[in-house]
């Protein structure tokens, strides 16, 4: 029977939770990189024991860590003591934690500024990696979504990263603006049927899609609406919180927009609302069941000003018909006095049968369901605030 590994990134370190296929008893290892913010950890589908981690700090910047043994040991790819830090000309050498925007005359020159909070233009400044998405087929290839919004790619296992500058170079970059959480590429989704197609979501610009492996990108926000935006036909400016896809149906995407849950059935070309009977359609994460492409999960939050569940009841909502009709899932979840939040990267599914669903809270609990959401249990209770959760089946 397969085992399950759940990678949990928190405000103060990373944790790895493992269980057998029953998913009732869990072992917790960590903190890995104690005291650092672990924005995201994700394992390679092609080589599950290879895990990439984004370790970050407002003081000391960005570190990329990699494990090749399922999280037992970690290293920064490509670094060996004694190597020179600079070229003979004095330029810093490429390293795993170096994310430098493309400013080359050929492709980077036009991309100098984006819109700042005050409406002025502001230079792009790298802050951190929000999301690392390993390739579905090559363990040495991975994508990094970063703040300020851009996407980078490595093809050497994380030793060096290079910007896919066509995203910022789309032409609308000067109109992108930060949301309250910053301006980052926080979600990267790969089309398993077409390795040239990727989707990214940017707060607060929206969804973009490439069909040529990242050279060029197009905004995919038609049909989205926001009460704060007077022009309904605007191309960018949407605070998309998360998008999710079922691997068997890559043209269908589900989205948790700032307000509204939406879906697209044409690869993001058009979107429509499927919030239906949700008690609030504000929220952050959205995931799709591993084996049922029309079964979707969200966690409603009261509002953009009140980032906690309605009525103090922690309820996951499930739709088995692709949206509009939602049922609350409450068994095992606190139904009074609960005021935690679930961040956009903090929900995941495994690929076992029945499908396991996982989410982490800003209160440090990680909840798991081994029966597609019918019942839940906390598998760890008192971690630092959870930033990200990724589940993977192993062995």
């Amino acid at each position, binding site marked *: 029977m397969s085992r399950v590994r759940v990678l949990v990134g928190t405000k103060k370190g990373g944790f790895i939770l493992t269980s057998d296929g029953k998913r009732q008893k869990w072992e917790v290892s960590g903190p890995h990189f104690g*005291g650092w913010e672990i924005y995201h950890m994700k394992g390679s589908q092609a080589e599950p024991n290879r895990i990439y981690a984004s370790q970050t*700090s*407002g*003081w*000391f910047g960005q*570190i990329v860590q990699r494990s090749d043994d399922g999280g037992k040991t970690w290293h*920064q790819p490509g670094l060996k003591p004694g190597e020179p*830090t*600079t070229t003979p000309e004095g330029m*810093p050498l490429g390293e795993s934690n170096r994310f430098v925007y493309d400013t080359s005359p050929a492709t980077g020159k036009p991309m100098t500024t984006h819109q700042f909070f005050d409406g002025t233009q502001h230079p792009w400044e790298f802050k951190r990696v929000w999301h690392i998405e390993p390739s579905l087929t090559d363990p040495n290839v991975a994508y990094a979504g970063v703040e300020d919004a851009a996407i980078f790619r490595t093809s050497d296992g994380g030793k060096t990263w290079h910007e896919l500058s066509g995203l910022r170079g789309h032409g609308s970059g000067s109109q992108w603006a930060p949301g309250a959480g910053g301006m980052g590429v926080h979600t990267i989704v790969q089309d398993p049927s077409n390795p040239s197609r990727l989707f990214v979501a940017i707060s607060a610009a929206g969804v973009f899609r490439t069909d040529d492996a990242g050279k060029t990108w197009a905004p995919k926000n038609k049909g989205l609406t926001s009460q704060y935006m007077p022009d309904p036909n605007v191309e960018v400016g949407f605070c998309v919180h998360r998008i999710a896809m079922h691997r068997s149906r890559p043209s269908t995407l589900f989205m948790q927009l700032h307000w509204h849950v939406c879906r697209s059935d044409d690869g993001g070309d058009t979107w429509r609302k499927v919030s239906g009977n949700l008690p609030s359609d504000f929220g952050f994460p959205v995931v799709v069941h591993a084996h049922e492409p029309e079964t979707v999960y969200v966690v409603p939050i009261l509002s953009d000003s009140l980032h906690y569940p309605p009525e103090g009841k922690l309820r996951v909502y499930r739709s088995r018909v692709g949206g509009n009709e939602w049922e609350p899932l409450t068994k095992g979840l606190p139904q009074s006095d609960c005021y935690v939040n679930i961040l956009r990267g903090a929900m995941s599914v495994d690929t076992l049968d029945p499908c396991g669903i996982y989410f982490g809270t800003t209160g440090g609990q990680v909840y798991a369901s081994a029966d597609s959401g019918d019942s839940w249990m906390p598998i760890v209770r008192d971690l630092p605030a959870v930033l990200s959760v990724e589940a993977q089946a192993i062995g």
Partner: protein
Amino acid sequence: MIRIVLPFHLRNLAGVDGEVLLEVAGPVTQRAVLDALELKYPALRGTIRDHGTLKRRPFVRYFACRTDLSHDDPDTPLPEEVARGDEAFQIVGAIAGG
């Protein structure tokens, strides 16, 4: 021998306890000390100085001999006491945040 005091997280990252001791060839400047530090502990590259510009990161400070050297030119010689190893060159994380 140059003595360097790192903040907790960077000691952790570099895998060292206590002070770091370094040999620095030539004039003992901020740049020379940091180059030598990053040469010995490449995990620290980008954590003290920005990768692209090699400028000090905003929440990092340099102290020695009870003096804030953060704004000094990186090629200015450090105090004699640091060069002799009598005093440590201290890399400090700003006290901020949670």
